[in-house]
């Protein structure tokens, strides 16, 4: 395998449709993610971000369309994709130390109880250090704070050396300081390990300094491109199905509805949007 394949995308999502109970959750979703890039998956709560992650992982039911990794259809248990789910909260009574959870990222899917090789223990230590979690490696995961658990989960997902890391709302419920720390850590690890990151958030502002591309979800549709290409009134208005304004204030971006939509619900419309 050659090291340089800049022309092909790492991940390609094509014509993905998901519906549940007669309701469309995602419609004609298509976008791609490049090697080593930091992509923000932005959308409000309930926009379908988690569903999209589940489609990429191949664990979403009632999904149609194609997800290609290196141009090949995804297989089950693809170890090239790491995943940090939303709202994982560990019970304090679980006899699982931070380092045990990280090790399970490497062999948690394997049957049998073979002894863990020395190399795995070394890899766990290395991974814990990479996410600044060495100090609480031997504490129960359930006794750690939200930010600390996030770090351990990131190490768990990265130990299998994936090429793509999916993080579902990792910044939700963290205080602003921890948000900055996690973003800086992800940016650092992504560059060092050459892993592409797709991170979902309902707030894009903390991500603006590190985001290479943005995938914006609203109304079951997505628009993708660089921030400048996507976060524009014309694109977002088409996506939402009613007019929105994009305000830039002190380096922050605010998306605001100009007026409440009247008439038929925006879901009934099929706005055209093309972003290259």
């Amino acid at each position, binding site marked *: 395998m050659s090291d340089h394949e800049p022309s092909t995308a790492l991940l390609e999502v094509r014509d993905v449709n998901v519906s549940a109970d007669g309701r469309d959750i995602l419609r004609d979703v298509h976008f791609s993610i490049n090697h080593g890039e930091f992509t923000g998956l932005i959308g409000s709560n309930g926009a379908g971000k988690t569903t999209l992650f589940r489609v990429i992982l191949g*664990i979403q039911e009632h999904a149609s369309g194609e997800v290609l990794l290196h141009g090949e259809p995804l297989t*089950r248990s693809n170890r090239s994709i790491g*995943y940090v789910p939303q709202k*994982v909260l560990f019970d304090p009574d679980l*006899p699982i*130390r931070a380092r045990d959870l990280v090790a399970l990222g490497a062999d948690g*899917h*394997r049957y049998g109880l073979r002894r863990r090789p020395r190399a795995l223990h070394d890899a766990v230590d290395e991974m814990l250090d990479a996410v600044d979690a060495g100090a609480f490696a*031997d504490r129960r995961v359930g006794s750690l704070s939200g930010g600390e658990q996030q770090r351990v989960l990131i190490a*768990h997902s990265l130990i299998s050396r994936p090429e793509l890391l999916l993080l579902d709302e990792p910044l939700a419920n963290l205080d602003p300081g921890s948000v900055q720390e996690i973003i800086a850590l992800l940016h650092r690890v992504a560059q060092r390990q050459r892993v592409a990151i797709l991170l979902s958030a309902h707030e894009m502002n903390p991500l603006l300094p590190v985001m290479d591309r943005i995938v914006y979800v609203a109304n079951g549709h997505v628009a993708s491109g660089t921030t400048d290409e996507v976060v524009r009134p014309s694109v977002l208005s088409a996506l939402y199905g009613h007019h929105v304004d994009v305000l830039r204030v002190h380096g922050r971006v605010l998306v605001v509805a100009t007026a409440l939509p009247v008439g038929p619900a925006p879901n009934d419309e099929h706005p055209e949007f093309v972003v290259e």
Partner: protein
Amino acid sequence: MGWLFEPGWWANGTVRTALLVGFVVAVTSAVVGIFTVMRGQSFAGHALTDVATAGGAGAFLAGVAPLVGFVGGGVLGAGAMDAIGVQRVKGRDIATGVVLGAAMGLAALFLFLSARSSSASGTTQLVLFGSIFTVSPSTLPEVSWLSGAVLVTLAAVARPLLLSSLSVELAAARGVRLRSVGLIFMVVLAVAVGMSAIVIGAILSTALLIGPPASALRVARRVGRAVALAAGLGVLATWVGVLFAYDSYYWFPSHRSLPVSFFVVAAIVVEYLVASVLRRRTRPAPVAASEPEGWT
């Protein structure tokens, strides 16, 4: 030590069988119990003992070996619960409750019929509360084989099971077959509670399944140690129960032994209280709890 071990204790074949069968059952229950508690399936475990009760009562009625009834009933119950929807978190309690209710109804019918068809008035007592002193020595190899099968199966799926107990999403993303692993565990659980139903009775086998693991999880920080500790606590409680029940024959002039089950459960409760005290002493409230970000 003469005051502790009453006459005949060391030479008694019934006692020896009780101790050996008790050992095997306690270890199996404890190991399976650790995963049951971590997966939050204690209620399912209890329901399976009720299904095992129906099986055991049916076995008495049909004149089949009780072990076959208890274990067979439990496995059928596990299959029924899986079919109804134990996989979905929301469906889990409902499926469990439905199967539990049906099983208890059947058990009541079987016990009623067997009490009328035979003169064995003690059947109800035996099925519900067990009697380790009535276990025949020939049961030991059967129980050992079952236990071996349970432990080997559990070891085979241990890591996927552990990961899916921590988070189904993490496990699914790693490619763990949640459905298969969950069903395998339910069957293992059914066999384990069916076995312990013979020793301390269907109703109290939940105590042996949940009690020692709950105590172990209070103090152990690693899964391996929790399993070992739970097994030790389970065996200790069972042996103490057998000993005291044996001794109790000499306590009262009427010479009626108190039930083993009572002493086993009493020992389990004492163990849990001790574990809780130890935890409070060795593990003060984590510092992180006072940080606002700890409460997400």
